[in-house]
C-alpha cells in the first residue's frame, strides 16, 4: 500500500495522498483511511482509498492494486461475509445491510436500519432464552425427578406458554408479506372503464410521461408499470387497459391482462369520470380499495377522492390515501421478517404447538430443542454455510 500511497496516515484519520503507479507517475489524489484490527467493518486491518469517481481513475487504481502480491478483487458480499465470520454482525443484520444499501424510500431505510441495529436479533435471542428456560425446567423434571427439590411433573403452565410463544413467532413470521412488499414495492393498479383518464393519472403520479394518453378510448392496451415513492413507501403503479367488451383481439388481450393485474395488486384505484362511468359494480373491487373520481373539472361524482389532473387538484390527497391504506397493513412490530427468517419462525412455531399437546416430557423437550435450533438459524448460529451462500448472493460487490 505504501508503494501506492506513500506513507499511510495514522489509524482512523483521513489524509490526502497522491496515488502513484510503479514508476512513480501520479494516478489520482485520494483520501486514505487506515483501520486497525477489531476496529473495522470486517474486524480485519483495512485501508480505504476514496478516489475521484471517474471510471478511468478507478480502473487504473484497481489494476495497480491487482498487481500487488496478495491482493485480489473482493467477491460479491465478501466484506459482509467476513464481518459475519468475525462476529461483528449476525446473519439477520447482514441481510438488513443488503436492504439498507438497496433502500430507495424512507420506510425501506428505517426498516433496514432497525434490523441492522439488531432489533430482530435481540427479539429472537430473547425468545430463545425463554425456550432454553422452559427446556431447563423440563430437563430438570427428567434428570432430577429423584430429588425431593424438583417436581416429578412439569407445571401445566408450560403448554400454554408454548402456544403463546408460538403465536409470537407466527406474528413475526406474518410480517413477511409486508416486509417483502416493503423491499420489492407494493403494487397499486389503476382500473376503470376506457377513457376515464387512467394514463393521465399515472403520468401525473410518476411525474413523467410514461404512458401514452389520448382522448381515444382504448389507447392503453398493455400493462405499464412505474415505480413511485409514495410518501416513503415504494409503490409500483400499474396502468391497465380500460375494461370493456371489445371485438379487437389485441385490446381484448389487454383487458384480460388488466383484470389479472387488478386481481394481483395489493391495492386498486377504481377510477371513473363523468364521461366514463362504470356499468354496474366493478368486479375487481375488494375491501380497502380506493374509489377515485377523475376529471373533476368536467363533472363531480362519487368517490373517496376527487382528482383533477388538469387543475392539479386532489393528487396529494390521493397520494395520502394510498399511503394510509398500505400503511394500515403494516404489522405492529417494528421489524419484519424475510422469507428465510419466516420459514424458520414457522417451523419453530409449529414445533412448539405440537410439543404443547404432547404429554411425554422427553418428547416435549425434543420439540423445544428443535424449536430453539430453528430460532438460532434465524440469526445464523451454526451450520449456516448454505444459508450464507443464499444471503450473500444478494449482494453485488464490495459491501
Amino acid at each position: 500500500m505504501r508503494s501506492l500511497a506513500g506513507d499511510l496516515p495514522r489509524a482512523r484519520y483521513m489524509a490526502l495522498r497522491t496515488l502513484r503507479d510503479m514508476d512513480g507517475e501520479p494516478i489520482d489524489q485520494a483520501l486514505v483511511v487506515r483501520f486497525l484490527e477489531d476496529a473495522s467493518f470486517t474486524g480485519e486491518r483495512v485501508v480505504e482509498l476514496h478516489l475521484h469517481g471517474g471510471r478511468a481513475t478507478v480502473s487504473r487504481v484497481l489494476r495497480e492494486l491487482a498487481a500487488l502480491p496478495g491482493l485480489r478483487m473482493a467477491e460479491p458480499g465478501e466484506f459482509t461475509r467476513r464481518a459475519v465470520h468475525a462476529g461483528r454482525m449476525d446473519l439477520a443484520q447482514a441481510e438488513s445491510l443488503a436492504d439498507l444499501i438497496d433502500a430507495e424510500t424512507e420506510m425501506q431505510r428505517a426498516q433496514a436500519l432497525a434490523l441492522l441495529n439488531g432489533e430482530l436479533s435481540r427479539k429472537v435471542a430473547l425468545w430463545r432464552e425463554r425456550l432454553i428456560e422452559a427446556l431447563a425446567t423440563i430437563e430438570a423434571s427428567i434428570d432430577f425427578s429423584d430429588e425431593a427439590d424438583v417436581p416429578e411433573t412439569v407445571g401445566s403452565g408450560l403448554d400454554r406458554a408454548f402456544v403463546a410463544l408460538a403465536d409470537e413467532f407466527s406474528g413475526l413470521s406474518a410480517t413477511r408479506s409486508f416486509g417483502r412488499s416493503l423491499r420489492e414495492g407494493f403494487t397499486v393498479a389503476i382500473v376503470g372503464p376506457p377513457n376515464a383518464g387512467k394514463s393521465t393519472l399515472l403520468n401525473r403520479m410518476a411525474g413523467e410521461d410514461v404512458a401514452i394518453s389520448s382522448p381515444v378510448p382504448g389507447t392503453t392496451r398493455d400493462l405499464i408499470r412505474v415505480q413511485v415513492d409514495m410518501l416513503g413507501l415504494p409503490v409500483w403503479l400499474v396502468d391497465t387497459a380500460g375494461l370493456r367488451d371489445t371485438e379487437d383481439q389485441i385490446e381484448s388481450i389487454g383487458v384480460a391482462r388488466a383484470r389479472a393485474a387488478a386481481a394481483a395488486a395489493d391495492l386498486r384505484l377504481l377510477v371513473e369520470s363523468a364521461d366514463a362511468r362504470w356499468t354496474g359494480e366493478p368486479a375487481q373491487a375488494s375491501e380497502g380499495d380506493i374509489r377515485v373520481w377523475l376529471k373533476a373539472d368536467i363533472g363531480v361524482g362519487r368517490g373517496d377522492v376527487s382528482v383533477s389532473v388538469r387543475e392539479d387538484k386532489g393528487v396529494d390527497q390521493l397520494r395520502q390515501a394510498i399511503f394510509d391504506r398500505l400503511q394500515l397493513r403494516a404489522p405492529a412490530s417494528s421489524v419484519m421478517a424475510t422469507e428465510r427468517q419466516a420459514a424458520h419462525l414457522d417451523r419453530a412455531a409449529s414445533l412448539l404447538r405440537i410439543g404443547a399437546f404432547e404429554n411425554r416430557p422427553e418428547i416435549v423437550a425434543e420439540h423445544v430443542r428443535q424449536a430453539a435450533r430453528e430460532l438460532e438459524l434465524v440469526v445464523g448460529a451454526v451450520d449456516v454455510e448454505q444459508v450464507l451462500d443464499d444471503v450473500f448472493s444478494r449482494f453485488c460487490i464490495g459491501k
Partner: protein
Amino acid sequence: MKRSDRSFDVIIVGGGHAGVEAALAANRLGAHVALVTHRFAALGEMSCNPAIGGIGKSHLVREIDALDGMMAAAGDAAAIHYRLLNRSKGPAVQGPRTQSDRALYRAFVQRFIQRAGLPVIEGEAVDLLQDAGRIAGVELADGSRLSSRAVVLTTGTFLRGVLHVGLRRSEGGRIRDAASVRLADRIRDLGVSIGRLKTGTPPRLDRRSIDWGRIARQDTDAEPVFLSFLTNRIENAQISCGVTGTTAGTHEIVRAGLSESPLFSGAITGTGPRYCPSIEDKVHRFADRSSHQIFLEPEGLESDLVYPNGISTSLPEATQQEMVRSIPGLEDARIVTPGYAIEYDYVDPHALSHDLACPAAPGLFLAGQINGTTGYEEAAAQGLVAGLNAARFALGRESVILRRDQAYIGVLIDDLVTKGVSEPYRMFTSRSEHRLAMRPDNADQRLTPVGRDAGCVGEGRWRAFCAKREALSALRDALSRHRRSPGEWQALGLAVRGDGVRRSAYDLVSQQRLRVREIRALTSDIPCTETVLEEQIEAEALYAPYVRSESARSELAGSDMTRVLPEGIAELTGSGLSNEVLNRLRNHRPRTLGEAAAMEGVTPAALEILRAHSLRSLPGPA
C-alpha cells in the same frame, strides 16, 4: 500366569470401578493384564452410596453391559432393592436403580476377577516408567518394577487426596486408605494440566439405633427392572428404604457450624458438584427451604450400617452427631463413621484423546475420577473404554471410539475431552442430543455388535444377543406386515381415524401408542414374545418419528463437524478470532470443527471463521 509375572501388555493402576472394568476389558481382548491395587480385599468397594444405576447413569450401566462389562451383573447380584426412576415418563428417560449389599457387591467383583484369571498385584504404584517418552511400565512403592506396553491409571480420589472432617485435615485417598503423592508429582511432570475437585460423603449410622417406627418406608418395586440384559431373576431378599428429612432445628445446627466447615472456612479450594451438594451447601444456598429429604439406605442384608443419602457433610464429628439427632427417627442414632469431604487432583481431560489415551505419554490411558468425573457408572464406563483401547494399543490395533450418536459413553468421553470439566462431571440424559434414540432398552442393539467387532464381547453374550435380535426383528416384521384398513381396525374395536389409509399394527403402536399385547389380543398374527421385547418395540415405535428427523440432522451436522481444521489454526491473527478463543485453540488443539464447536467459549461466530479456514487454508488466491 501366562508369560512372566513382571512383564505385561497392560497394567491397570487402581482397583475401583474404573480399574476393574479396564482390567476385565483388556483381559477380554486377550491382552496379558495385571491389576495393581493397595489391597485385593478392597476390590469392588463402594466408597460412596451403595447404589448402582439411576437416571442417565443406568444408560451407562446398560451400555457397559452391552459391551460385556461387569457392572450391571454385579449390581444385580448384590441388589437388595430395585426401583425404576421416571416410571411415569417415557422409556428413553427411565432409569433402573438398585441398592446393593456392599459385601455381596465386593464378593461378586473379587470372585469375577479371580475367575477371569486376572493377576492382582497388591502394592502402590508410585511412578511411571518411560522409554523414550513411551510408557514402559510402573514402579511400585517397594522399588520393584513391572513392565508393560500400556498403563491405565484409575486412581480415583487418591492423587494428592486430602480428607476433611471439620477443620481437621489428613492425607488419604479414601477413609482408612493412603493418598498417592509421588504418582501425582509424576503426572504433573508429563506437562498435562492438573486441577482440584472435591466430593463428600455422609456419616454412616448404626441401623439398630434408628427408630424405624417413625420413618416412612419406600418399598422395592414389585416387578423389578434388572440392570443387566442377561439377568432374569432376583438374587437376594429385598428390603425397604426409609425416608425422612431435615428440620428447622437441623438447619440451625448446620448454620451454626458453618464456621467449622472446611467448605466455608476456605480450607477446601476444589470445586464440588452442584447437583450433589453437601448439607452445608443446601442449608446455605436454599435458606428458604424448611426441609431436605433424606433416604435411609441399608448397606446390606447382614450389615448394621445405614447410608443416610442427602446429608453429605464435612462438619466436625460432634456437630454431625448433633445434626443427625435433630432428624425425625434419628434422635438416638449413633454415627459409626463420620462424613467427610475429600479433595483430590484431577487431570484436565483436554489432555486426552477420544480413546482416553494421553498423547503426552504414548501408552498411557486415564479413566474415572482422575478425569474429573463423579459416580461409579461414569468411572466404569471410562474404565471399559480405556482398558479396551490400552489392550488394542498394546496389541498393535487401532483405537475403538464410541460416537455421541451411538452411546452415552460416547457423549461422556466427548464432553470430557472436548469441553473439559469445571465441576465433577455426572451423566444426565439431557447431555445427549440423541436421547430418544439412545435408550437403556436398546443399548445392546446399539453396542453389542460394536463390542463384538472390537473384541470385547464374549461368546455367551453374543449368542444371547443374536437370539434377542432375531426375536425382535420377527416381532417387528409381524407387526409391520399386519395391515388393515381403518374400517377393519374399527371392526376390531380400535378407534382408528377413517381416512382410508391402511395402517400396519406397527403404525398403530407408533401413532396411537397402543401396546403390542392389546393388538395381539385382537388378532392371531402377532407372535407371543417376552414382555421386554414388546416393550422395546413399543419404545422404538413411540420415538420413531422423532428419531428419523434426529438422524437426518445428525448427518448434516456430522458432515460439517468432521471437517478437519488446518494446522496452525491457533496462530491466526487478524482473522477476527478473539484472543480468548485463540488461547483455547492453542491449549486444546481441536482436530475437527466438531471438536472446536464443543469447546467451552467457542462462539458461533468463531466457528464460522474456523469453518471458513477449514475450507481454504488462506483467504483467497494471491
